[in-house]
């Protein structure tokens, strides 16, 4: 989910943009030219994931996958997610110019934290630890995105409190699904092509 244009106030927009630019600058600095194609693949996957709808009860939700992107990319998740969001703005007008920074921050910061906290467990020999870290990482990053989004809304206007509660509530089922998908996906990659995970 993105925060649309015209909702946040300028202090929130400006500080979100500043943090997103800082993160992206660090990510770009750490990104070697020969790794750009791999990053672009994941960035494209992040874009396409938002078009894949997964059933949940009678309804369906689209995938976010910022946990996997974080685990696979580390700091490069910032530029990768910023690029994917700019393309979404270009193609579908989800988000836009003024909210690009805020949206990047709320997707990429959890991705980065997921990398910092859960990557070490994923690389280990024990498979059940890998799966557990995958689930927690995937769920955690979506939940944190929801929390950040809610926080930005409340910072923008105190009347948005109820809306941000609704935002967090919406993120809870998505969080569980993302956890399950991330868990199986990481397990799969570890079996099929561990080099993608950086082992």
């Amino acid at each position, binding site marked *: 989910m993105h925060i649309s244009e015209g909702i946040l106030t300028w202090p929130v927009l400006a500080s979100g943009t500043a943090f997103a630019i800082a993160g992206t600058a660090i990510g770009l600095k750490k990104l070697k030219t020969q790794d750009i*194609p791999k990053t672009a693949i994941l960035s494209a996957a992040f874009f396409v994931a938002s078009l894949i709808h997964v059933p949940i009860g009678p309804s369906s939700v689209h*995938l976010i996958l910022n946990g996997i992107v974080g685990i696979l990319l580390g700091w490069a998740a910032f530029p990768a997610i910023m690029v994917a969001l700019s393309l979404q703005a270009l193609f579908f007008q989800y988000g836009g*110019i003024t909210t690009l920074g805020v949206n990047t921050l709320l997707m990429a910061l959890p991705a980065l934290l997921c990398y910092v906290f859960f990557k070490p467990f994923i690389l280990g020999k024990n498979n059940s630890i890998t799966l557990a870290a995958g689930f927690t990482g995937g769920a955690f990053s979506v939940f944190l995105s929801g929390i950040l989004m809610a926080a930005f809304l409340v910072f923008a206007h105190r009347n948005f409190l109820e809306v941000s509660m609704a935002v967090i509530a919406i993120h809870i089922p998505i969080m569980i699904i993302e956890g399950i*998908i991330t868990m199986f996906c990481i397990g799969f990659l570890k079996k099929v092509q561990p080099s993608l995970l950086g082992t």
Partner: protein
Amino acid sequence: MLNEPFSIGNSFIHRTDPRLRLISAFVYSIVVAVLYGFPSLIASVGFSFALVRVAGLNGKAVLKRLALINGFVLLFWLILPFTAGGNILYSLGPLNIYETGVFLALQITLKSNAIIMAFIALVSTMNFSTLGHALNSLRLPQKFVFLFVLTYRYIFVIEQEYKKIWRSIKVRGFFPKTTIHCYKTYAYMIGMIFVKASARADRVYRAMLCRGFDGSFYTLAEYPSSGKNRLFLCLIFFCTFSIIFLEIVFHG
């Protein structure tokens, strides 16, 4: 699933230098994003609508986009008028509709639609390669532009891989349900997309190295400055300043 319906056209806006369009969209969006007063907001919706008209875009297609994006704004309409507090505008049984909430939701709706319409008219009217070149000549970091251009290219690769795997899953009688098996299938499909696409990315990169790629991004496109570009700039500046003027006069 991907197309750029607005990039085809031969209007005044389509022919303007894409760098100017990007910068004006940027400045204009920021100005509209910080507005509060209704006169200036209404003026900006009018101006953005005029931009869409000048770009000669298909009205139905634009409306369809706007309807999709207003989903998030709808969430505010569903909650804000009932929770904002302050003056009661109307009582609906146990529910009170508050004035502040309605105004706030209306403000958001106007802002959001004004910015998106301007974005569609100014930015979505370029095709992707033009945008890549424009970003490059605006001196964005080279790695960023390269990542941007490659990501765009790979979206179609990934989409193809996704459709291929999805077909073979369907052929085997898969039906999406809320079960662990279904989620596992999705997860393995996504994993397989990563594996296949990264192998492909690797091949593409080696082919690029063979052709002398050294990490820099060249562009052959040139944008000569013309009277039309200057006219465009004057118009955008005039409208942006009138919106700022309205804001200061009525909401100062």
